[in-house]
């Protein structure tokens, strides 16, 4: 069986079959990763990741691990999307505050006070969620995560511990 890196070399030469094989090989892992990172846009990001892989294929160094490179691209896309959402969320928040401050507005209490794991993961700050998903669900080592996320290895470790702490803190019913 061809290694990922061998397949990627063929993709660099324009081999469609090799690209299809790589996409199939990483379909569950990549989609699972994107579902944890950006559940509401995972299918679009899945497609976008592979388009970026194709566009950047000549910059791939076959001496590197393909999986690290792939997740680096996917993670960067998630970050870009997170940034865009924060900007949009900022506008929405301003609008909500304007509505709340209007006379006669009644604050509605949240229906579900206890967050399930899905919501707790979603509520984690992005920098913590990305390392936790890569470590727990993909069982990647700290060195690989450091390369994917682009931070020092020591920072990966401290962020992982912070993520676990944040999840635990969220666990208590409010």
């Amino acid at each position: 069986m061809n290694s990922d890196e061998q397949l990627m070399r063929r993709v660099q030469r324009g081999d469609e079959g090799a690209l299809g094989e790589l996409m199939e090989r990483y379909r569950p892992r990549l989609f699972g990763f994107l579902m944890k990172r950006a559940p509401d846009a995972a299918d679009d990001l899945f497609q976008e990741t592979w388009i970026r892989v194709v566009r950047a294929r000549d910059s791939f160094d076959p001496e590197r691990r393909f999986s690290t490179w792939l997740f680096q691209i996917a993670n960067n896309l998630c970050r870009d999307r997170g940034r865009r959402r924060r900007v949009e969320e900022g506008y929405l928040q301003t609008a909500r505050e304007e509505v709340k401050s209007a006379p006669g507005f009644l604050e509605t209490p949240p229906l579900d006070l206890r967050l399930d794991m899905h919501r707790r993961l979603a509520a984690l700050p992005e920098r913590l969620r990305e390392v936790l998903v890569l470590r727990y669900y993909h069982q990647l080592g700290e060195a690989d995560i450091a390369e994917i996320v682009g931070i020092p290895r020591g920072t990966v470790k401290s962020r992982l511990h912070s993520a676990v702490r944040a999840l635990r803190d969220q666990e208590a019913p409010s």
Partner: protein
Amino acid sequence: MSEPCAGVQERMVEALLAQRDAGAPDLAHAESCDACRAHRDDLMALRAGLDAEPWPELPEALAERARAAAFAELAATAEPARAPLPEGFGRQLVRVLAAPALLLPVIVAWNAAVLFFAAELLAGAVPAAVLTTAGAFYALAAGGSVALLFGSIPFVAQLEARRRLCEVTP
């Protein structure tokens, strides 16, 4: 938190992240320490929650859509294939290169002969150091000229080979 407890709790988190059970000594410690026991119970609950998270499959239709988009991108960004060499190009190239290839040893031999006979002729009249220096300069100049001239021949030769083929191919 005491020093051993901090270490125990950190190792428990590491075990959770690696999806394995904490080490026996740490678990034994947790049995006799309220804080570490509470930490262990929290982490166990957390692990159960993380494991219960669904791992959804990408629907086939979406996978197909992504494949089609990636293939289209690959086709759009592929380098255009190089035009194949015309038939008989190799034979023509050998013919064009044959003349300079035969000429090269003659040029080298001629220059070597010039150096040899000049040295013989001037040996008594010119000091040896001057003769050696002049010989070295001559050899360098002749070698450089030959390298420049013959280095360009393959480029010219392949153009000439193509031209000849164009003339005979309708």
